[in-house]
């Protein structure tokens, strides 16, 4: 079959989604696809652009793997925009002079920031906020200045302001309208949002019409019509968007009076076979500046192009509902939020807690027409269901927004019809979610999300998605089990007990006795951890079930090299030992970085270097820091009463004592700990699995905190303890956690799910409610007494060292490992597509 030639101009979020949809619908068999991107990078997530400020890396923003286009047979030309189009001869020319013929042409050119026609906005120090390049320039210029302003108090402008605050700049927002986010929020909601944003130090200037731009070559400020003025050294303009329709205009494709390529309900322009999507498309006289409508358009067009025999999909316009977190404040707005039609408003406002909720209800009180939530948007998913599916409201609709929204008064998604829309970000109906569960066998929330895309946008509908999943699994008679994996019909907690009672000591024994098959990446490390927690034998005795980090006693990094972290108990280190670490790093050319746990990470070690590095470290008095294990890692501390003028107890000594007691103990997940010498809490102990804070009379013990994905403060467990009692409680708490938690479950989640919560745990650990405390202590003592430095275990055993080489049949090292230099140290070369293995 001769393939038709399809060209997509633009590789932004919508252009990329269109390609994904083409692939999904089998379009790669029908079309020879070429994508032209103007930017030097492949498609990335523009919505979360401000994260680039904090991360300073584009990697996490990319929407696909480097080789996604190539592996799907799509030609992607970057830094190569189209510059002219001949709609008669049906070909186009790029900036590099490439001539491309097309049968189908898709404009996904997006928009550019609108810069108001103010004289002087061409001065140095004026930026827009759209591409990674824009951000890079802003960041560079931002280094030199103190005071910055954003012109425009809409969604994007506030995002930009947040980025400026994160950079430590004095930040101002200048808005023409009398309130923030004038398109989404009413006066009440906007004033609450304003107060919240001002709390973090952004100054907001409303009702400001700029009269004059100050400064000669560089921008220095604004003069306003009302006579006032504002001085600043840098400006980000975020005053709306302009569709990128210039190319279409030149080619004679019809565009709207105020810009935008005019499209019909099938995304077609006035020229046959030429289409437009996303922010450049003018649909029913409306330009959508959000990504979700663009995705809907992409889906419609891709489907119609790939399935010409089917009834074509029709795009009738999008719902503008949105939920987002703005500068840490939840904001949601849906439907007729501003109450433009006849309606009854129901408003709840609490300026003290910074919460505003508004329902816009039909005059007969039966239906929800729209709403606004600021400060607390938990009710969003629920309200959206009422709105999208035109469900009759309860007698007292205010119950939907007053008080806390818990799962009980969440509205049951099982009573919804299949066509009910659940996720408005990705336009997913209840039926789509059900088919993901039924046809594609997605039995957990992650796979439902991946498969149906529901809940993968703002996440506001996840409670609904979860409830649909649970109801459907129940209907299918599938019990939601906590089985470890297909090889074991036990939860980790049950497995722990069985292995202990049956005295099973190796994986082959365990799987033969109580499992089936050959094991997998879930059960092998789980059993390895259980065996280590019960018997505490050297872990390399069970090498075949260790994850790569445990197998090589180091942390695997990009490129397949490893990092090495020696233990530095309590973060205390002598000058000689510091020098020794430096010597080792120099000798093996390792990259050095101070970790969050007050240690030093040495990165870039090849597998064959590991035993040599450890030997040198051990000779200098170091031991393994177990940074590679799901194990007790560090006890962070401050200097405490020995040095600090505020300290009330010797936190360093106590931290060292604790770290040496619990070092390397394996657990369901990693354990991190901390000890602070006074209430100022410099060791950040409340962000740890256990944290201890000194008081005048002893130590306060906190448990169940962590950083990471869901940061959680540890909860106060007991007060004013002496050292011995504190250790006793920690022994029992840790062992109880090790015995009963699920695989890869941190103490915070474990505590949340423990029936009876912290009060029950206190009853167990302090009052010995279960009568197991002597056992728990005995088990902990046995772990403490059988401690061994796992590195030394290898350094002393030539047989074990044999495993530390890259090739079995050659003494070469891995030629694929490549480093580049940055700031005087090595780092791995980037993952790029042409380095990928060729088949």
């Amino acid at each position, binding site marked *: 079959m001769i393939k038709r030639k399809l060209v997509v101009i633009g590789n932004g979020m919508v252009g990329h989604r269109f390609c994904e949809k083409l692939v999904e619908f089998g379009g790669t068999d029908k079309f020879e696809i070429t994508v032209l991107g103007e930017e030097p990078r492949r498609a990335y997530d523009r919505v979360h652009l401000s994260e680039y400020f904090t991360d300073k890396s584009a990697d996490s923003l990319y929407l696909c793997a480097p080789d996604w286009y190539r592996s799907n047979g799509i030609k992607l030309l970057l830094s190569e925009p189209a510059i002219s189009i001949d709609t008669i001869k049906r070909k186009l020319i790029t900036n590099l002079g490439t001539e491309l013929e097309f049968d189908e042409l898709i404009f996904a050119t997006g928009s550019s920031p609108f810069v108001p026609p103010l004289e002087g906005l061409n001065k140095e120090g004026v930026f827009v906020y759209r591409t990674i390049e824009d951000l890079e320039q802003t960041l560079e210029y931002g280094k030199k200045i103190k005071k910055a302003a954003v012109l425009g108090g809409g969604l994007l402008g506030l995002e930009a302001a947040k980025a400026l605050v994160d950079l430590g700049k004095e930040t101002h927002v200048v808005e023409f309208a009398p309130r923030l986010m004038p398109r989404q929020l009413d006066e009440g909601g906007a004033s609450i949002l304003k107060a919240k944003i001002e709390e973090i130090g952004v100054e907001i200037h409303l009702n400001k019409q700029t009269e004059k731009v100050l400064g000669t070559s560089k921008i220095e400020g604004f003069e306003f019509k009302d006579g006032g003025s504002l001085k600043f050294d840098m400006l980000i303009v975020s005053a709306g968007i302009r569709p990128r329709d210039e190319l279409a205009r030149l080619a004679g494709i019809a565009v709207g009076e105020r810009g935008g390529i005019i499209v019909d309900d099938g995304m077609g322009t006035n020229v046959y076979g030429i289409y437009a999507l996303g922010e450049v498309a003018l649909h029913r006289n409306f330009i959508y500046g959000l990504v979700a409508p663009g995705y809907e358009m992409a889906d419609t067009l891709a489907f119609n192009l790939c399935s010409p025999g089917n009834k074509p999909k029709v795009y009738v316009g999008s719902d503008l509902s949105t939920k987002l977190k703005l500068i840490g404040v939840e904001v949601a707005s849906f439907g007729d939020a501003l109450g433009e039609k006849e309606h009854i408003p129901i408003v709840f406002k609490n300026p003290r807690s910074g919460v505003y909720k508004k329902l816009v209800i039909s005059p007969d009180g039966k239906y929800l027409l729209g709403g606004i939530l600021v400060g607390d948007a938990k009710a969003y998913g629920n309200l959206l269901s009422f709105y999208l599916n035109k469900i009759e409201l309860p007698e007292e609709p205010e119950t939907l927004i007053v008080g806390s929204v818990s799962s009980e008064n969440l509205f049951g998604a099982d009573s919804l019809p299949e066509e009910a829309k659940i996720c408005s970000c990705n336009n997913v109906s209840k039926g789509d979610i059900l088919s993901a569960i039924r046809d594609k066998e997605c039995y957990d929330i992650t796979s439902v999300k991946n498969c149906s895309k529901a809940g993968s946008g703002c996440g506001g509908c996840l409670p609904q998605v979860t409830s649909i999943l649970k109801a459907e699994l129940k209907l299918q008679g599938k019990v939601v089990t906590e089985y470890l994996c297909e090889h074991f019909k036990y939860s980790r907690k049950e497995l722990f007990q069985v292995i202990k009672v049956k005295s099973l000591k190796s994986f082959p024994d365990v799987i033969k006795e109580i499992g089936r098959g050959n094991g997998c990446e879930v059960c092998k490390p789980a059993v390895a951890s259980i065996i280590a927690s019960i018997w505490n034998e050297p872990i390399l005795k069970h090498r075949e079930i260790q994850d790569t980090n445990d197998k090589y006693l180091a942390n*695997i990094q990009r490129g397949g090299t490893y990092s090495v972290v020696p233990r530095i108990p309590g973060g205390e280190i002598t000058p000689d030992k510091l020098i020794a670490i430096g010597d080792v790093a120099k000798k093996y050319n390792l990259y050095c970085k101070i970790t969050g746990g007050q240690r030093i990470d040495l990165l870039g070690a090849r597998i064959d270097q590991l035993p040599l590095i450890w030997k040198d470290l051990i000779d200098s008095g170091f031991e393994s820091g177990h940074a590679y294990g799901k194990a007790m890692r560090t006890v962070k501390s401050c200097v405490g009463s020995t040095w600090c003028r505020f300290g009330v107890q010797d936190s360093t000594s106590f931290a060292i004592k604790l770290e040496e007691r619990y070092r390397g103990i394996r657990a369901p997940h990693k354990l991190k700990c901390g000890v602070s010498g006074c209430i100022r809490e410099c060791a950040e102990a409340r962000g740890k699995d256990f944290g201890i804070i000194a008081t005048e009379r002893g130590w306060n013990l906190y448990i169940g905190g962590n950083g990471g994905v869901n940061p959680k403060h540890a909860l106060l467990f007991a007060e004013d303890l002496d050292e011995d009692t504190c250790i006793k409680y920690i022994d029992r708490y840790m062992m109880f956690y090790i015995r009963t938690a699920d695989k890869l479950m941190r103490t915070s989640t474990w505590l949340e799910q423990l029936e009876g919560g912290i009060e029950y745990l206190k009853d167990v650990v302090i009052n010995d409610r279960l009568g197991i405390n002597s056992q728990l202590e005995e088990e902990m003592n046995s772990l403490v007494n059988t401690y061994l430095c796992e590195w030394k275990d290898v350094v002393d055993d030539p047989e074990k060292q044999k495993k530390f080489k890259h*090739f079995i049949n050659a003494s070469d090292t891995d030629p694929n490992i490549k480093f580049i230099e940055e700031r005087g140290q090595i780092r791995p070369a980037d993952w790029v597509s042409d380095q990928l*293995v060729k088949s």
Partner: protein
Amino acid sequence: MQTNIKNKILIGPITDFEAEGGVTAKVGEKQIAIFFFQSRNEWYACDNACPHTGDMVLSRGFLGDTNGDPKIVCPLHKRNFSLTSGECLSGEKYKINTYPVLVENGFVYLEI
């Protein structure tokens, strides 16, 4: 898919290999991961590079099975690959090449 005539290449004695795990063999410029799946008494070989990043790490991953089908799990991001078909079992279109392993008189050979 190999269309060329295959060569039989000696890699080493069985005793050098890792039971229930993998090693990397250098075959010309290529890196091949070879697995001794002892619990099934089976041998497998595939590219050592994970097609996701190109890093030479697959030999260091977990061996396992999904419904009886033998698989290797990349140690970097836990993508699963079938050792029989080379298909990515984690729902992506990645694929690895697999190669026949011969074991004769205590020695392991690759056909490549």
